């Protein structure tokens, strides 16, 4: 549905995006991750035709965004960063305008607006001007605008940024509900969002794709993937640490003291090994007073940092 090839954008001497290739199909929710200034928004702006690429091409449902932009834009719903809207209009007027621009007239326009309003739960504020709305409602107006024509392709730049947890949940449920029929690209800073809604995560750094896989695949690259943490009394910590280390599947054990007299031991597995069974059996056999015992799927923030921390930063950190 979305095909990007060699996409590049220069602003003067700065390369904001350099040579991105991607394909996104129906049913995929692709999470765009990356530090600030990595090129996520710039890429989205080129997919939607707001910016012209310096090189490379984008096809949306088979239409080249540069040469056949109107046809491509008809297939796209776009929520720009910050969900811009005309502040002096009410959501009803604004969505009416969008419907009309998208070619709906009369009763069809009313229905399309009503449907988008229902999906984004905008009813309570329909007659207030957008300027007076809370951030959450403003964002939902932007979302309603993007899904009004039920587009096969949805591009959303930080759709949950600045929302409270309930609103985030609502937006994520909406995205999940629409996912099977659409190709969706979502950019985000929130790593938990990727685990919550994305079928695929792409990490962009300095204008390049540096990682591309399912959230589970990315998690598997984490040091904490399958790591097991036990919480037990400080008195038992030393012997427990030695016993854990002796397990054939354990590569390393780290210890963190806690203020309440307990100690957290984290055992890191040798590559790919499953530790939780060995560790829990050991704890039972040794009669440790284990208060907590859990295995981790991995930490996305760790993977994210490992991939996107630049060499210079890394060098500085190691010197410190």
């Amino acid at each position, binding site marked *: 549905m979305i095909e990007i090839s060699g996409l590049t954008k220069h602003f003067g001497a700065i390369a904001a995006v350099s040579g991105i290739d991607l394909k996104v199909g129906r049913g995929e929710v692709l999470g765009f991750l990356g530090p600030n200034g990595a090129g996520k928004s710039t890429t989205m702006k080129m997919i939607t035709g707001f910016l012209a690429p310096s090189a490379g091409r984008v096809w949306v449902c088979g239409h080249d965004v540069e040469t056949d932009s109107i046809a491509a*834009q008809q297939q796209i719903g776009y929520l720009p960063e910050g969900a*811009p809207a*005309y502040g002096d209009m009410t959501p009803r007027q604004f969505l009416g305008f969008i419907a009309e621009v998208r070619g709906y007239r009369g009763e069809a326009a009313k229905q399309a607006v009503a449907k988008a309003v229902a999906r984004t739960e905008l009813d309570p504020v329909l007659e207030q001007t957008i300027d007076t709305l809370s951030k959450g409602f403003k964002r939902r107006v932007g979302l309603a605008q993007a899904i009004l024509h039920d587009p096969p392709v949805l591009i959303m730049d930080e759709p949950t940024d600045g929302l409270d947890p309930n609103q985030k949940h609502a937006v994520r449920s909406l995205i999940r509900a629409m996912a099977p029929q659409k190709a969706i690209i979502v950019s985000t800073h929130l790593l938990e969002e990727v685990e919550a809604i994305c079928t695929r995560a792409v990490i962009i750094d300095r204008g390049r794709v540096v990682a591309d896989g399912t959230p589970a695949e990315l998690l598997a690259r984490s040091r904490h993937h399958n790591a097991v943490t036990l919480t037990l009394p400080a008195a038992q910590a030393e012997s427990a640490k030695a016993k854990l280390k002796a397990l054939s599947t354990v590569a390393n054990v780290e210890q963190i003291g806690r203020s309440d007299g307990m100690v957290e031991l984290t055992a890191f597995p040798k590559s790919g090994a499953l530790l939780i069974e060995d560790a829990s059996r050991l704890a039972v056999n040794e009669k440790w007073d284990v208060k907590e015992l859990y295995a981790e799927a991995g930490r996305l923030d760790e993977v994210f940092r490992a991939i996107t921390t630049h060499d210079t930063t890394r060098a500085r950190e190691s010197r410190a």
Partner: protein
Amino acid sequence: MNQVWPIFKREFAAYFATPLAYVFIVIFLFAMGAFTFYIGHFFDNGVADLSVFFAYHPWLYLFLVPALSMRLWAEERSSGTMELLLTLPIPLWATVVGKYLAAWAFTGVALALTFPIWLTVNYLGSPDNGVILASYIGSFLMAGGYLAIGSAISATTSNQVIAFVVSVVVCFLFTISGAPLVLDFFHGWAPQALVDAVASFSFLTHFSAITQGVIDLRDLVFFFSLIALFLTANIVAVDLKRVG
């Protein structure tokens, strides 16, 4: 045209959604009256025509029209709605034309609201209403010319103040390009044809020709081609910003 209409409608309604429209219209009418009666001495002239009224239109437009046009694109750019607008499936020309026509229609409304002065002059005497109609048409065309210039300049910046100041300067040059201030700059080095060409860009010359009561095809062609030229520049300016 199908695609111009929604843009036109939204833009036109936007004027009336804020105090902008009312403030503009009140000041426009007040200034028109002040110029006509106090500076133009409308009553003292003892002539039943509106020539003193129309004589001040170029000078009023010079400041009021850039105040309208400055927000046309600069505001979209600074508020981020530009990104929304340009990713909707409408050709760029339709967006540019729709916004422009809305602003032009709005100046038309303001101009039409000066009708009491037309009633007054008809009550006081028997003016040549043909000349008055021609003058109104000329004034409207001239407003369209100023607006097109302002719209194109607004598209080059996200700062409304810059858009206003630059528009006033450019409009001023177009207003008086038949006057020595501008022509002396070209005299002496430029060929006479160029000097004549510059002089022919003067809004004052074309407008005063129309206010004589004769709508010459040349004057119409002048205003319409100027509008077309600046709207094209407007499209190019928006498109160039896409390329970055």
